[in-house]
Each structure stands twice: as C-alpha cells, then as structure tokens.
C-alpha cells in the first residue's frame, strides 16, 4: 500500500506544485515553489529504486472504465529510468529557466511554469503507465500541456509553429496510435504491458507488421520521418522548453513509448520472428541519415540541434526494431545519454542567446573566449552526442552497433557509422569556430561576459554529467538489464 501511494505521489506532487505556484503573485516565491517541487519529485522517484532492485513492481489501479482495461500505474525498470532522467533534469531546467526567463524578460512567466509542471506530471504518467490506454491518456495530456509553451511568444510565428505542432502530434496519435491501440485490444482483450508481450499468439505476421508500423508512425513524438516537422516547428518556444521538453521529455516520451510497445506489447521474440519491425527499422535508418544531412544545412543553432534530435531519436527506434538484447540496451541507453548531451547543447544555445542575442551559427565566430564555460560545455556535449569516449554517448552507440552486428544488418552498421561522421560534421564546427575563428571585425572588448550564473551552472553540471555517465555506464547497463525481455517461465 505504501509503495502505491509513493507511486501516485509522483503524479500528484508536480500537479499540486503547479497549482500552488500558479496562485503566487511574487516571482521569487513562485520560483522557490517550482524548485522545491522539482527536488521533492526527484527524491520520490529515487525512493522507488529499492523496490525495483528487489524485483518488485509497485502498482496502483485508479479507475476501470472499460472491461479489461484499467487506468493504472505500474513501475518497471525502463519507465523508472525515464522518470529519473526527466525529474532530475527538471531541477536543473527550473534553475536554468529562472535565469533565462528573467534574463530574456519573457511575459506570462507564471503560466509558463504552471504548464511546465503539468507537462512533467504527464511525463511521470507516461513513464509509469501500466497499460497502453493510460499511456495514451498521458501522451495526449503532454501534447496539450506543452502547446501553450510552444506558442509562448504569442506572435504569428509562434502560432504557426504551434499549429504545426498540435496538428501533427494530434493527427498521428489519434489517427494511428489510437487505431493500433484499439486493434490490439480487439485482438487480445487487454492492453497491459506484460513481460514477453501480449500479442504473441494472436497475430499473423502481416497484421504484426501493420500494427507495429502504425505504432511507430502513430507515436509522432518519436519524430519518425515524414512526421518530424513538428519538432523544428516547436523551436519557437523559449529555450528551457526546447531543452527539457523537446530534447528530453516530449521526444523521449515518444521513443520510450515505441520501446515499451516493442518490449511489452509485441515482445522482442515476436518482432524477431515475424520481422514486424522491418518497415519501421528502415524508415528509422533513413531518418537518422537524412536528418543529419538536413542538420548540416541549418545555420540557426536551435534548428540544427532540432534536426540532430530527429536523427538521434531514430537511433532508439533502430535499437528497438533490431529486437535483440544488445539493441534494446543500446536503445534504452541512448534515451539516457542523448537526454544528458542534448540538454547541455540546448542550455548552451539559450545561454548564448541571453548573453549575445545571437541565434545563427555563422555569427558565433570567436565567441569562445567571451563565453568559455558555455562553449566548453557545448564541445563536451557534442562529443557525447557523436558518441566518442570518454563520454556517456559512446556506450549507447557501442551497444547499438553490437545489436546491428548481432542482427547481421550490415547496411545499418554502415548507416550508424556514416551518421556518426555526419554528427561530427555538423556539431564540431560550432565549438571550433567559436574558439578558433577570428571574432567579427567590429571589435567588441575582450574579457569574459557569460550568461547569468543561473544559466551557466546548470549547463556545466549536465556537461559534467555526460562524463560521469561514461564511468557509470556499467551500473546503468546492469540496471537496464533488469528489463524483462521474455515472459517468466511458468
């Protein structure tokens, strides 16, 4: 009973914190509440670890609207990992957001922090959902809660971006994801996430391919091409939103959903036997290569990072569709590693904007000596995304490569290597130009002029995090190995 309440409180705490802060008139109290809420949530998530490490799966049923389908929460290792990343990075983003929003003098800050808290509630719901319906509910909640954040600026560009955002995400989720969910229900009579999957004896190979493809495209948040356009469109949002939601929470919710469906609805054996993932696998391979090429052409820093995210997300999908142990571990690790790396890059982009109002990469020549911490962090984050040791990202890429070799998919091995080269090509020049190119001629005074401390400290922490993750890769590997890939023997 105790652990059920603990689980439920991971949803209630951010929600209550959001409501509480929306009632405050003083900006300082509001931000303090935000920070305290984030910290409490992170501690609560950590409190769940002992149960999972003991092999328990705490759960709670909230409602039972339809025969065979409940509205319920249950913990499993993958979801717990996702919740930890999201809630942990929420603390840093809150600190960063306080600096950014004040530095940029954004209006409607209370609405901003309220919607942020609401989004985190939805993310916790996605992470701990015990069945597809619950996951779907929180998935839609996340879309709707982030919409006011995307349109925060309120100008025509923001509204247009918001319309693309809502249009694509709602269309794919209702059009494909809901259909696939209903179809699964009509085939199996249940929607629960179970070890080894629930579809195993209920589908023909053809149905399995159609279903998994519907799921992959229906999870629009995973940004599989051609439904990736919402992500660049969402970059009109203030940078803290892009950082936590569109590099971590929202997009990771997408790939997390796909990963969870592959493991707990289909079961990796079914995918491997029927080749159900074939279409999604090749579309993802195409996406990760094509997105890298597009990223090369973008001069706007946030747009380049957005396309980089599109590409990196497809790594997770590739890992899930390879349907072997190494692939799944690689995919799960990629969720963690990319989150840490990409949030660093976005934090840096925001800090550069706050300090210099610059958004185009070509304008950033020589900025490195003005903002050494920011660009050093950017460099470290870039290396982690590319997957070079001694940074966390290397483990994810390593396992994914192992997974593709295990599956004897040589073309995918090639695509992954090619994409890594492309990552170098579009990420390294940003930091390299900042340090090695001469600054613009209208000589500004030398000396350090960083963004506010509240912005710089979090990005240094996340940069350090990518290094730490390399050395603790083993522990993470052990934890991910707890994910039950097959049904327990009877």
């Amino acid at each position, binding site marked *: 009973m105790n652990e059920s309440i603990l689980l439920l409180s991971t949803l209630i705490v951010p929600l209550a914190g959001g409501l509480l802060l929306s009632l405050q008139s003083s900006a300082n109290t509001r931000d303090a509440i935000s920070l305290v809420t984030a910290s409490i949530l992170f501690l609560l998530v950590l409190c769940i670890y002992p149960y999972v490490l003991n092999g328990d799966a705490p759960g709670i049923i909230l*409602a039972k*609207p*339809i*025969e065979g389908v409940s*509205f319920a929460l249950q913990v499993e290792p993958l979801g717990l990992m996702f919740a930890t990343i999201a809630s942990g990075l929420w603390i840093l983003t809150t600190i960063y957001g306080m600096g950014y929003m004040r530095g940029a003098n954004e209006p409607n800050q209370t609405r901003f922090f309220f919607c942020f808290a609401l989004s985190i509630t939805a993310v916790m719901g996605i992470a701990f959902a015990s069945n597809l*319906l619950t996951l*779907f*509910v929180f998935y*839609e909640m996340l879309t709707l809660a982030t919409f006011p954040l995307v*349109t925060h600026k309120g100008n025509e560009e923001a*509204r247009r971006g918001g319309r693309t955002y809502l249009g694509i995400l*709602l*269309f794919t989720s*209702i*059009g494909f994801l*809901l*259909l696939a969910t*209903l*179809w699964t*229900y*009509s085939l199996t009579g249940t929607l629960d996430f179970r070890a080894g999957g629930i579809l195993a004896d209920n589908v023909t190979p053809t149905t399995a391919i159609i279903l998994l493809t519907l799921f992959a495209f229906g999870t629009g948040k995973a940004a599989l091409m051609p439904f990736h356009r919402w992500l660049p469109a969402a970059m009109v949002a203030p940078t803290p939103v892009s950082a936590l939601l569109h590099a971590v929470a929202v997009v990771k919710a997408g790939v997390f959903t796909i990963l969870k469906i592959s493991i707990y609805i289909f079961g990796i054996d079914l995918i491997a036997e029927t080749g159900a993932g074939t279409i999604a696998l090749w579309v993802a391979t195409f996406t990760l290569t094509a997105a890298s090429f597009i990223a090369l052409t973008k001069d706007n820093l946030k747009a380049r990072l957005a396309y980089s995210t599109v590409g990196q997300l497809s790594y997770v999908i590739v890992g899930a569709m390879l349907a072997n142990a190494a692939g799944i571990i690689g995919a799960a690790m990629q969720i963690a590693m990319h989150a840490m790396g990409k949030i660093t890059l976005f934090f840096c982009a925001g800090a550069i904007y706050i300090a210099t109002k610059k958004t185009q990469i070509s304008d950033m020549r020589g900025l490195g000596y003005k903002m050494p911490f920011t660009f050093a962090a950017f460099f470290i984050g870039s290396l982690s995304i590319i997957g070079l040791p001694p940074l966390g990202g290397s483990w994810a890429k390593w396992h994914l490569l192992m997974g593709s070799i295990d599956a004897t998919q040589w073309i995918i091995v090639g695509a992954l290597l090619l994409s890594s080269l492309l990552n170098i090509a579009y990420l390294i020049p940003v930091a390299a130009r900042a340090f090695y190119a001469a600054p613009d001629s209208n000589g500004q005074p030398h000396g350090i002029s960083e963004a506010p401390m509240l912005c710089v400290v979090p990005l240094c922490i996340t940069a350090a995090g990518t290094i730490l993750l390399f050395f603790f890769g083993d522990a993470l590997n052990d934890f991910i190995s707890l994910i039950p890939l097959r049904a327990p023997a009877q």
Partner: protein
Amino acid sequence: MIYQLPAIVLLLTLLAAPICSMIRNGDIAWKLAVIAAWLSVAASMALMHQVWGGNEISYHMGGWPPPWGIEVRIDELSALVLILVTLFGSLVITVLRESLRTAMRSHRHSLYYTTFLLCMASLIGITITGDAFNVFVFLEISSLSTYALIARGRDRRALTAAFRYLIMGTIGATFILIAIGFMYMVTGTLNMADLAVRLPEHADNRVVQASFAFFIVGIALKIAIFPLHYWLPNAYTYAPKATTAFLAATATKVSLYVMIRFIFDVYGVEFSFKQMHIDALLLPLSVAGIFIASLIAVFQSDVKRLLAWSSVAQLGYMSLGIAMVNVAGLTATVTHMFNHAMIKAGLFLCLAAMIYRLNSSHIKDLAGIGRSMPLTTGAFAVLGAGLVGIPLTAGFVSKWYLINAALENGWVILAVMLIISSLMAVAYIGKIIDVAYFKPAPAQHKDVKEVATSILIPCWIFALLTIYFGIDTRLTAGVAGRVAETLLGVGL
C-alpha cells in the same frame, strides 16, 4: 407506493403541466415545474434501482391485465432512458427561468413551463409504455409540444423552422401510425410483448413487411437519421437557447429508443436483420451521415448550427452501432445515446450562457471569451473534449465500443473511417476553442462578464458528469452491455 412508481414517474410531470398553465405567476409556476421534474428524477432513479441487474417491471394501468389493458413495462434500457430524459430535462428546466427572463414577457412564462413539462411527460410516456399505440399517442404529444417550444424562439426564422419540423414530423408520425395499424390488422393486438410473440408467424406476410418499412422510415424521420435530418439543423439553431439543450438531449434519443425497442423486441432480431436486412440500409446511411454532417459542421460559422450538424453526425454513430448487429455495437449505441445526450445538452447550455451575454452565436463573436467568461468556456472545453472522445471523458467510452464493434466484425476500414471522423470532430471543436482562447476579444465585447451562478452550476454539472461517466461506466456501458446481450438474445 413503490409498486405505483411506474405510474408516478409519468404522472408527476403530466399533472404538473395543466396546473402550471393555470398559475399566472411565472415564478411560482417555475418552482412547481422544477419540483415536479426533480421528483421524477428521483422516481426514475428508484426504478433503475429496482430493475438493476436485469429485472423487469410490468405494471398494469388501472389494474387491467394485458393484452386488454395498457401495460407499463420497465427494464434496464427504459430505466436508463428515463434517467436521461428526467435528469437532463430537470437540469435544463432549472436554468429556464433565467433564460426566459430576457426572451419573453413574464405572463407567458407559465405557459412555456407547461409546454416544457408536457414535452417531458410525453417523452417519459414513450419510454415506459408497453403498448404500441400509446407510443404513437405520446409521440404526437411530444411532437406538438416541441413545435410550440421551437416556435417561441426570438428569431422570426424559428417559425419556419418549427413549420418544417411540423411537416416532417407529421409525415413521420403518420407512417408510424400506418405501421402500427398494419401490425394490428395482422395480429389483432397492440401490446408490444404480445406483438413480439405473434409477429414471427406472420414474418412472410407482405403487410407485416410493409409495416416494418413504414415504421423504419417514420421513426428515422423523428430520429433525424441521414438523409432524413432536414428539419434538425434549423430547429436546433432557431429554438430558444436553453430549449435547444433539452431537445438535443432528449427528443431524438427517445425516438432512437423506440427504434431499438421495435427493431429488436417487437419485430425481433430474426425478422429485422435476417429477413429485412435493415443493417444493409442503416450501415451506408450512417457512415454517409457521419461524414457529410461532420464535414458540414467543420465549415459552419454559427456555433449553434455547428453543434446541430454535429448532432446529425453523432446520431450516425448511434444508428451505426445498431447496424453492426453485435453486442459491442449495440452497447455503443445505448451508451452513446446517454453520453451524447449529456454532452450535447451541456454544450448547448454553455453556448446559451455565452449567447446570453454576447447576443450572438457567431464564431467571430466568441473571440476571447475564454478570458471574459472563463468558467463557462472551461465547461464548454471539457464537454467539447467529451464530444471528440478524449480518453477519461464519457465520449471516449462510447467510441471505444463502437470502434471495437467494427474491428470485431473485421471491418478495419470502418474503424479507420470512424477515427477519421473523430479527427473531423477535433477540427470543428478545435476551431471554437482556438477562437475562444487564442483570439483577442472584439471591441464591442470588451466588458462581457461571467453569467450568474444559477446558470453556471448546471453547465458544470454536465461537464463533471461527462468526466464521471468517462471513469465510472457501470450506469452507462454496464447497463448498455446487459441490455445489448438481452436484445440480441445472447448470453442467456
């Protein structure tokens, strides 16, 4: 007392109506009407309690045993429809006084309450009677009172709308009368249970087949099944504000109930589906209705008319459920009948509150209303989510069953089409929400204020019920599931 409940539930409103007409003071008449209406809600709940789990009540009017006397028959389906009519009717009548204040001179008010109560009583009568001819009589009373209610709209076009409905309604009622006459000709009885026993042996009789055809066309006119929906959009658009909420909730739903009762109980599943293939007719018409009406709704600029067209589309969902001929489909029909009544009544009520302040239901005038009337718009948004079928709202439960019914029959394409139609609902509701929250308010509506609490409370009751029935579905889908099994004759 308990034994007399089936009579009491009808008599409360039926007797309150003439008394109301004799009271000159509108306020006292309103109080009487409200008390009578809410007492009938209590009686319906008590009846539901009695039949819960699949029981049936048979009550003989005046002590005459059927088939000679008039029988009142209540099972779970009729109890559910009773709750629908009385509960949603009472909620609307509670706000009626506020709504009439500006619309009509006060000495007329009591007559309006009389008409309203009469309409409610006749709908209750249709629901509980076990006699085919009584169905016709009450149907006529309900139609006549509805014409009067619609014609009271402030817009002069309300008169033509009422006249159109009068013509269509009369044709429908005549067809139903012919159908009942034919049945009586062949079997010599009017009691519905008795008819159900006697009709199968005359299944090959052309007269019975003709009566079936007459009946279906007649009742389809009343339900406004596409393409016989011609009267509905205008009637809903020009009827007085709060009255639309009542009509949208009850009138078409009770007609649908009659259709279910006759197709499944009186004519029987064997005759209706195996011999007459009514499903082959209903299926394409429903699908066409859903798509065409949704499409028209997307392009409406008057919100009242938009919601009216959406009603036509939603009625398509309900008739579609019948055409599936499986338990999930019929469950969806009955569940959606209840859920949609609640959602649409709530939407029209919220809209009535907005019109009360804005004096317009044009979508442009709703701009920025999310800030000036946050509580009303909030309720509207929740109900809108219910209409679209967002999970954890009542609308989701009915759509879930409907799509499952399609998949159960192996009609994947139909399931896809249903989801596309949901997206169209997203489009037309989203259009309103977008304007309400994200557009600046026009200059002439700068000082619009929230409406009185007495209107807000019923709006929010509808909104909260929409969420409640999205989570606890024992009353809706639970009853509907048992009803569907009984009607289709499975699981017995």
